[in-house]
């Protein structure tokens, strides 16, 4: 759809959404024990960050700053997604290795190293 003829919603709403998602993600990381679940929550956090970028980029695009600034934000999102992919690859590989070794990916079970 063409964005030209729409009245934009306040960027702060988007920001609020990202805040909520970020909180949810954090909650997940801190409260789940299964590595994959944790990692999913991490993805949520990254995405919320993306939303934040988007929100600000949206704001700057609407005349509060240069267009370049607005673009920067979106570029950042682009890269975050790429990084997320990379992290996913590594993380999942790591989980597999862990699972091979210990038959579980419950992070609470990995505490040989402590004190």
């Amino acid at each position, binding site marked *: 759809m063409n964005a030209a003829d729409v009245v934009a919603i306040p960027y702060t709403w988007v920001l609020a959404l990202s805040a909520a998602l970020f909180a949810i993600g954090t909650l997940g990381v801190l409260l*789940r024990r299964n590595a994959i*679940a944790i990692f999913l929550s991490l993805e949520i956090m990254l995405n919320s960050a993306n939303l934040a970028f988007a929100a600000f980029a949206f704001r700057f695009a609407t005349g509060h700053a240069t267009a370049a600034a607005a673009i920067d934000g979106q570029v950042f999102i682009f890269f975050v997604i790429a990084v997320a992919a990379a992290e996913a690859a590594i993380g999942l590989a790591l989980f597999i290795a862990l699972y091979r070794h210990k038959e579980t990916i419950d992070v609470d079970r990995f505490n040989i190293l402590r004190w």
Partner: protein
Amino acid sequence: MVTWVFLAAAALAILFAVVAVVARNPITNVLALVVMFFAMSAVFAVIGMDFLAAIQVIVYSGAILVLFLFVIMLLNVRRIDRLGSGRSFQAFIGTLVAAGIGAMVLVIVGLLLPEQGAVLPGAAAAGTALPIGRALLSTHLFAFEFITLLLVAAIVGAVYLGKKDLR
């Protein structure tokens, strides 16, 4: 109208984010995440970032989460721990912290509320692929080249960790 779309997407995103975090069957988690990502791309679209909306769907839902599914299948993890099970103290403080962080950002948002977003001038079609592509190949050329290293490194590492021992 836009407003409603946004609100709906937002509600959807939050809802399924919660599901992704709470659900105890990994498959559910992943699928919930997929929905959430779709919602997000909707949001992107609403604020006129078509390109992002696109890659959000393609890369995330299309690639990353599939990867997740594969892994889950591979390790056939069925039921996993309940949210906050185990260490109750960790859960308690964790909840507080998460809430705190969220609240903090929300408060900031509150502070920012006064100045509202204005009409998005059609001329500045910021979100389309063209300007982003330009930026990627000019201002952010280095990052653009650099990300390849990142991905290669990730592949190398993943391969190493994933492969069975050669000798």
